[in-house]
């Protein structure tokens, strides 16, 4: 795969990912079985629903991703190998999504069955070799309107652990060879071998053909072929599709003078996606529509003429302009920021003392060793990790993660035993300049210490205990309603989907609002719980509603007494403006 992986100087190394995922789904009797662990759905429907969800997610987060979907052992058309190309590997688009969502809707409404749509029979099995060949072809064929893929994944779904090839030593050897070949093209398998207690999946055959034979002493020796239960298909697909996003890559200095330096990589674990930021400008006039471009121009503020040369940057200081040369600027920053990116351990502190919820200022990163820049990084950080965890310590770090960024202080904490991954979370801590003053509050009569106050606190505690979130906060439970709306409007317009004008009743409209906004739906559920309590026939069940009523009565009582007093309260001047 020459030329696809760019090697530029480290600070500029950024490369345009073009990722592809091919879904290969083997039809079998099991695939059409309704499973209790999937809420009485078929595995096949679960896979297709997952694919649609993946597409809807990628259209937002990585719209340039390519997807393809193939079924085998399928007699949909005349293909002699029984391969049905549902859609070929190509960049995400509304049509493929619509095709899939229409199918799922038809199946859901009973307009067709999945068996009708995907006729399956073991009479003519698809040779695995042809599936492997097809994958290779999908990734290697040149297409004029599509860039080649530099991140190539195959998601293989099957519940058959012993296809005919598993009994044929020659076929096994050919497949093994083919798998190595695919690996040479950087095409990697992610396997979804679905098994259950009743029907365990033996991964011996696939493990043998997919295991990379080349050398035994490497971390990268082929895919993990451990079988999974059907119920985790979705979460595994959504996790395995994720491409690792490197935020930074730099040395971590443990002690400078003894060259105690290792390599680290920081990955993005959370971001802040916004709607409507991915667009092109277009020029529209009468019948013409073509791409437009924006260009920044500098004009002489006095004459209005465009300036072609002589532009420079200065530090404004009141009425002064101070120009420092690049060399001077480099000298100024050298002492505290070095030249290239780096992070340096300043000390260790008790984790409980330095991880707070009340002083966040930026997005965190997840830090792991980078063996590719310093050998021994894994060894070093594994030992540091163990020690920090044992001693319950976090590191205070000084440095900058990009060559041109301002250095700052960070807290590096080892992940705890509940975390999915082992590594370090890195959070920036605000500078004193970034910690704002708490506003002066107009001094006011305070009811703290009164019986009334104690009662309100008691009520509040009782109410709180009814709305306990046992599982903490799960981002996956909340889709961003703003982003969802933006993409829904685009989707509906692209596919000319009917407007929901047919929603007449207020209930239908409410239903729609709630279905499109997770955040509102969760808030509405809280209210439903309170209403249910108010309508309960059980005294115990009415408790919650009673707390709410009493809380409000006290609120109103204080408020009305305040109104009587109000003329006598002279608020001092408010310094907050």
């Amino acid at each position, binding site marked *: 795969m020459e030329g696809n992986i760019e090697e530029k100087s480290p600070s500029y190394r950024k490369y345009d990912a073009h990722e592809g995922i091919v879904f290969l789904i083997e039809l079998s009797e099991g695939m059409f079985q309704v499973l209790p662990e999937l809420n009485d759905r078929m595995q096949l429907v679960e896979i297709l629903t997952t694919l649609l969800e993946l597409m809807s997610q990628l259209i937002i987060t990585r719209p340039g991703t390519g997807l393809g979907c193939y079924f085998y052992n399928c007699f949909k058309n005349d293909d002699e190998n029984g391969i049905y190309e549902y859609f070929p590997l190509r960049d995400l688009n509304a049509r493929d999504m619509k095709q899939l969502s229409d199918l799922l809707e038809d199946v859901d409404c009973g307009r067709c069955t999945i068996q009708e749509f995907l006729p399956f029979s073991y009479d003519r099995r698809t040779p695995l070799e042809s599936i492997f060949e097809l994958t290779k072809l999908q990734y290697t064929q040149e297409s004029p309107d599509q860039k080649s893929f530099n991140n190539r994944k195959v998601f293989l779904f099957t519940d058959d652990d012993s296809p005919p090839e598993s009994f044929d030593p020659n076929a096994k050897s050919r497949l093994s060879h083919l798998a190595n070949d695919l690996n040479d093209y950087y095409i990697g398998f992610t396997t979804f071998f679905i098994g259950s207690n009743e029907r365990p999946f033996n991964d011996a055959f696939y493990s043998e053909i997919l295991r990379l034979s080349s050398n035994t002493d490497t971390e990268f020796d082929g895919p993990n072929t451990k079988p999974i239960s059907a119920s985790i298909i979705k979460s595994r697909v959504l996790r395995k599709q994720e491409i690792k996003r490197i935020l930074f890559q730099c040395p971590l200095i443990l002690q400078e003078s003894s060259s105690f330096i290792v390599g680290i990589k920081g990955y993005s674990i959370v971001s802040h996606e916004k709607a409507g930021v991915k667009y092109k*400008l277009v020029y529209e006039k009468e019948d013409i529509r073509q791409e*437009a471009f*924006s260009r920044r121009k500098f004009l002489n503020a006095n004459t209005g003429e465009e300036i072609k040369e002589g532009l*420079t940057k200065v530090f404004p200081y009141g009425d002064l302009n101070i120009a420092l040369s690049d060399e001077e600027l480099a000298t100024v920053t050298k002492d505290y920021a070095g030249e290239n990116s780096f992070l340096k351990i300043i000390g260790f502190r008790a984790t409980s003392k330095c991880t707070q*919820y009340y002083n966040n200022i930026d997005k965190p990163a997840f830090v792991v060793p980078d063996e590719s820049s310093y050998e021994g990084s894994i060894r070093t950080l594994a030992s540091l990790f163990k020690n920090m965890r044992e001693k319950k310590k976090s590191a205070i770090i000084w440095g900058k993660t990009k060559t041109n960024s301002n250095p700052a202080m960070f807290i590096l904490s080892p992940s705890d035993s509940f975390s999915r991954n082992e*590594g370090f979370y890195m959070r920036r801590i605000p500078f004193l300049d*970034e910690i704002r003053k708490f*506003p002066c509050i107009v001094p006011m009569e305070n009811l703290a210490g009164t019986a009334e106050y104690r009662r309100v606190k008691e009520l509040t505690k009782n109410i709180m205990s009814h709305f306990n979130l046992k599982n903490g906060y799960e981002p996956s439970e909340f889709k961003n309603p703003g982003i969802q709306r933006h993409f829904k409007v685009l989707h509906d317009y692209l596919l000319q989907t009917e407007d929901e004008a047919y929603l007449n009743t207020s209930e239908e409209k409410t239903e729609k609002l709630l279905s499109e906004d997770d955040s509102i739906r969760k808030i509405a559920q809280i*209210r439903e719980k309170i209403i249910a309590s108010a309508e309960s026939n059980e005294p115990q069940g009415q408790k919650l509603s009673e707390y*709410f009523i009493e809380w409000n009565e006290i609120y109103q009582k204080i408020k009305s007494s305040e109104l009587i007093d109000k003329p006598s309260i002279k608020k001092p001047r408010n310094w907050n403006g």
Partner: protein
Amino acid sequence: MSAESTSFIIDASRSMVQDGNVAKAMAYLEYALLEKVKRQRKTDWISCYLSNCHNTKNSQDIPGIYQVQSFVAPISTEQTLNILREVNSYSQDLVNDEVKKEIPDNELQCMIQCLLVASLDLKSQFNKRKLLRQIVIFTDDLNGLDLTPNEIVVLQEELNLRLILVDCCKETSSEDIFGSKWGLLIKAIPGSKVYRINELLIDITSLKFPIIKPVRVFSGELRLGSDPIGLIRNNFDPSADFKCLSIQVEGYPATKHVPSLNRKTVLKKEESGEVEYEPVKSIVEYETLGYDTDKRISISQESVAKAFRYGSDYVVLPSILDEKRFLNTLPGLDVRGFLDRKKMQNYYLTSESRFILADTKSGGIADVTMFNALVDAMLEYDKIAIARFVAKRQTEVQMCILCPLLVDSGVVVPNQVNGENFQRTFILSRLPFAEDERVSDFPRLINRTTTSGKAISQGKDSEQIDALMSQYVDSLDLDAQKYETVPDTKYYSMLNPIAKETSLPLPDDFEGESTNDPSRIPAIHIRRQQQVLLEYIHQKLINRSSEFQIPELPDMLRDIITPHFDSHSAKEQTELVKLLAIKKVEKESKRPDEVYESDDEDNIPSFEEIMAKGAR
């Protein structure tokens, strides 16, 4: 800070000059005036006088008083340089005996007259205008005021201003000061203060934080049990509904990024060796490829539309649909539930923080009471809340945490109950939505396996490595080294309305920022830039040096970012490094399954931003 006027009076007596006190006063003035130059506030007036001076120039023609600068606002660099140069050259002349003397040095005694001239000048300049009037006096003669107690009373009534006396004596006790003539006057005039000159000089080299007044960024209801659909349809009133808790609250920034000092783009012009910079205007223009040509042609902003990306498609929406892209959102904070503090993953916090507090303006005692009870209840149960947050009408929906916090209000707000003086607040920070989360699997650090799942054996020296690493961590253990941690209640401090009524750099009576908490540090890049710019002005403009020698990074800053090793053993570390066999890899390889998070994607300016820039 509202309008203010500062008159500087420098006692230019021989002793002041010879003991270097005029030079010290000038060092302070340079800093204080350049601060004002930087701010360029039109309501920040200054004037400057030399008293006990052999030259005479003042509105009342009183001998011995020389007005170096009449009232000006805002002061320019050139005027600042003039003041400094004039005072310096007078000092030089006095030392070199090149001053024309009409009376001997020791007979010059005109501080009181100078005070009166300054006061008269203030009156004629500002009449009855409302502004803070202050006179800063630098002197080493605390009894150099010829006043009887009765005269002090008269003067106190006459002077409608406050005095800031800068004591330039070598050693004085507070009794010396307040027993002196100047001291009595200071005591008599409300708001007046005394500082020692060295105290001021230390203060201007120490770290100062610009105090930013809190600006309200949210005002609305904090609710539990509201009807979200009813709110959208405008047929639900949370404050009148007994199935819903509703408290009036407001929000202010708690942490906020500070950028480094920004450079601005200008046009450089060189004429006969003189460099000048002219202002430029930046605009955004739109272009497209011309018909039948490869050349770009300009097009009007009105004919430019946005084509939104949808996978491989780009969509231009008709305007009626474009409006539908936005949710109709209303400001408010709706609690979604409560959870144990330890169940909240710290790394889910993704934004700057905000204070959420009971609104005492549009709300009242009832809101404060209910709010405080909620904060207290959550603190007692060690809970935090998850809430849906919309800051302003038609802005994005966010999911947030609300973390309860007590803020020590220090001495400013009168004690409330049982001597406690905490203000109650929530700290709000954004949480990720489903689209924001990046879930991936990383190889394990301990009990490592290959990609197919085979265990990788631990290295042979792993026990010894762990033991040495343990020593390494201990050698940098800040907790063992008695570094302080600022308690939660003092992490944020209260805005002190009295301390900052003047922009004059003065030692702060209230700020107790003396802790050695290693995680509370100033923004070093900003400090450094400011230091360099001030030094540039000092060297190139005041001292007219042709070269600019970049000053060293101050030790105070350097220490903060130097690892805090205790008596660490270099030998053990060398051994550890050897055992770990760390080696820099010359040619790095890249994993094909990773990408660099692109900055551009995060920072694509919105169309509106581009338009706004263009409109400037």
